[in-house]
């Protein structure tokens, strides 16, 4: 086990890499989810006229 953690002497480079990668994955996932929820909340509290700016199909 300690041999695995030592990474042949490169532990100081390999493990930060692994940690950073998973931290960024987690951060991306959380911020994306939070953004979607935040947009939901924002629109719910926003009183806008119905169908203003409705989607148009354009060729």
């Amino acid at each position, binding site marked *: 086990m300690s041999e*695995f953690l030592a*990474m*042949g*002497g*490169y532990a100081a*480079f*390999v493990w*930060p*890499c*692994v940690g*950073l*990668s998973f931290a*960024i*994955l987690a*951060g*991306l*996932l959380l*911020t*994306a*989810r939070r*953004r*979607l*929820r*935040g*947009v*939901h909340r924002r*629109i*719910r509290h*926003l009183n*806008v*006229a*119905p*169908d*203003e*700016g*409705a*989607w148009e*199909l*354009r*060729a």
Partner: protein
Amino acid sequence: MRLPNWLHKLASPPHFYRIAGRIEPWMLWSGLAAIAVGAFGGLLLAPPDYQQGDAYRIIYFHVPAAYLAMQLYALMAIGSAIGLVWRMKLAYAISAAAAPVGLAFTGLALATGMLWGKPMWGAYWSWGDARLTSVLVMFFLYLGYMLLHASLEERSTADRAAGILAVVGVVNLPIIKFSVEWWSSLHQGPTISRLAAPAITWDMLWPLLVMIVGAVLFSLAVTLTRARAEVLLRERGARWVRDVVAVGA
């Protein structure tokens, strides 16, 4: 030139919102599973490299990140180009959604590249390396896209302006890469050459492939989630958005 009909149907925001919401969990979980398998295989099962020892295992994180940095830039630029030509809001939404994800992966590629460079080249950074420099430029292009988008108040203006920047950037990137290569080929001083890529064996290769597939699925899932939020923002007055929002996330 017109877009095919099926694309129009897919590009209708309510349709996209629904479909994206349905496939996003599948992509996310299969992506995370692939990343877990790839990380396990790369860190534990793959044999150490005869030249680089265990340091080469950084490849399992660096290469997928660098690959995604490029692919997401391409997605962002293509989305912007489609948006500019056909004035399709959904394409802009996808561009705007891809930018922060691409920025994060570009940053990760740079950081892991530096952590790999230190034990292999003896330096965290080499300005003569065309790949490093062009990835750094890409990082700034992502940043510029996002800052420009954020500073223009009207969303449609921001979409178009940032879209033009993305397209100009994608034309410029190969020129930048070529320039740095040319420059470093003439540059005196310590030239650091990459270690010759050893013929990679299958037990080293499969975790990398699994990792790339997982990272692609994961980043698409995150981009879809963000794109759903962007679509809602761009359509916030429409009735379907009010219905979706009333139900809750």
